[in-house]
């Protein structure tokens, strides 16, 4: 697999140097792997820190800025960052109002953020944590690592970021973040596997004419393989999986998310099919976002995330945001 890289060992550092060059409004510590908004800590406001493996860009570093994250910690590709990074980020953004860790539910992310939270509290930083676990393809039981955090991470980071921006206290920001997660569900499909720079070839073998249903965002195969389907058929499977689990009574935010190698032309076509199926099921749509936001390197495919919102959540969603990856109202 050809890649636009120098050597696999430096892909993360190279991307961080490029992010710094493109966004002088961010402080990018390439050596210590921390991206912080330049005006942090913002007096009197809760700091929001997230992070995770690289390879999901623009998540998380592309969501640092006013109205969203205060800092992000990128790990190696598909590998959670280490506690040292999170501690450094927390110290950089804590104004005294406390810090919220937004953690996608993967064993590695959870363990490293837990260790970081203990270290931060030792240093007198008040830390709250919220887990994102929206992927309905995973059975949540005692016998799995639980549902994965995927597309809902964007909704949590945006809405909690707006809440922090309004000056809400830590416990309120945490409660809103939790509310967003509890009201969000996702389902993803892959048309091709992705290739990590370290491996250089696809992480699993997906023959032509087949697709994977219920994939995650780390190149892991899904729950089920089927013969290739049309965009409309995929929309029916994805909407059914999400709606049957969420059973929304309020309007929803819709995220039609590309996995990295699917053109916007196809994503918009898929969005049309998603809307057709949602309308047929009587689910009202409040807002829509279409694009590549929570990606999986060069995987082809898409995920659908719905988030059921009340008036406050919708107001916070609409609030101004100014980050490399998401920007409106400013």
């Amino acid at each position: 697999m050809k890649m636009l890289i120098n050597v696999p060992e430096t892909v993360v550092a190279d991307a961080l140097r490029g992010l710094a060059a493109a966004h002088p409004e961010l402080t990018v510590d390439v050596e210590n792997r921390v991206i912080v908004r330049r005006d942090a800590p913002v007096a009197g406001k809760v700091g929001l820190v997230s992070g995770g493996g690289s390879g999901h860009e623009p998540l998380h570093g592309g969501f640092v800025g006013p109205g969203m994250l205060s800092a992000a910690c990128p790990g190696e590709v598909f590998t959670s960052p280490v506690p040292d990074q999170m501690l450094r980020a927390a110290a950089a953004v804590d104004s005294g109002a406390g810090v919220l860790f937004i953690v996608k539910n993967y064993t590695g992310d959870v363990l490293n953020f837990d260790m970081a939270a203990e270290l931060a509290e030792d240093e007198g930083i008040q830390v709250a944590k919220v887990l994102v676990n929206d992927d309905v393809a995973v059975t949540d039981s005692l016998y799995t690592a639980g549902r994965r955090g995927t597309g809902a991470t964007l909704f949590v980071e945006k809405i909690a970021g707006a809440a922090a921006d309004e000056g809400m206290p830590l416990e309120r920001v945490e409660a809103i973040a939790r509310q967003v997660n509890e009201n969000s569900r996702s389902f993803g499909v892959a048309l091709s596997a992705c290739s990590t720079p370290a491996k250089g070839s696809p992480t699993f073998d997906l023959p032509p004419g087949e697709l994977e249903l219920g994939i995650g965002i780390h190149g892991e195969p899904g729950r089920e393989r089927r013969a290739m389907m049309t965009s409309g058929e995929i929309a029916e499977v994805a909407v059914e999986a999400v709606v049957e689990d969420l059973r929304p009574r309020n309007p929803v935010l819709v995220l039609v998310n590309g996995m990295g190698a699917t053109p916007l032309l196809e994503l918009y076509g898929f969005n049309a099919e998603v809307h057709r199926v949602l309308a047929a099921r009587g689910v009202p749509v409040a807002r829509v976002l279409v694009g590549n936001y929570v990606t999986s390197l060069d995987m082809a495919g898409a995920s659908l995330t719905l988030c059921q919102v009340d008036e406050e959540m919708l107001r916070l969603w609409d609030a101004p945001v100014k980050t490399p990856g998401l920007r409106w109202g400013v």
Partner: protein
Amino acid sequence: MLDADFFRRWMTVTAASVDREAERLTALDSPIGDADHGSNLHRGFTAVTAALEKEAPGTPGGVLTLAGRQLISTVGGASGPLYGTLLRRTGKALGDAAEVSAEQLAEALRAGVDAVMTLGGAAPGDKTMIDALVPAVDALGDSFATARTAAEEGAVATTPLQARKGRASYLGERSIGHQDPGATSAALLVAGLAEAAGE
């Protein structure tokens, strides 16, 4: 009796075997994980050997706690905190004695493995590193070589299991038929112990 030199040797030979086996670990991590186990552990053990050279701790416990701290700070993922905790807790259990017996090491390692089970929530049979570590610790009373064999057999025995923890658990029944990369690297760590002892 085992001194700090023995424990340094254990870490160095493990670093070398992780280096040799990195590609195999990553290959095992492809069908049921995310294809990075070898490169992540390689980064960690490279940092361990560098730190041991620089700081040269004088006790067995000092060597292992430093190694554990390095793994936590450099590996990331689940394996960083898990392997880091294994070595750190084992090191702490050894205290600041200049030399320890094989029995003391076995006891300390059991404390380390218990800490890993508490942190990660995995039990034997979940298709994780625990499936190599628990039989190894049980066999340590005999010899390091017996422990190595037990760990290797434990790793191979993960193949027919369905994963219940970690990223492979997302695959459900599709995780069956693949040897667990974490159990495989844990067997390398135990083999390093035997190699360091010249067994």
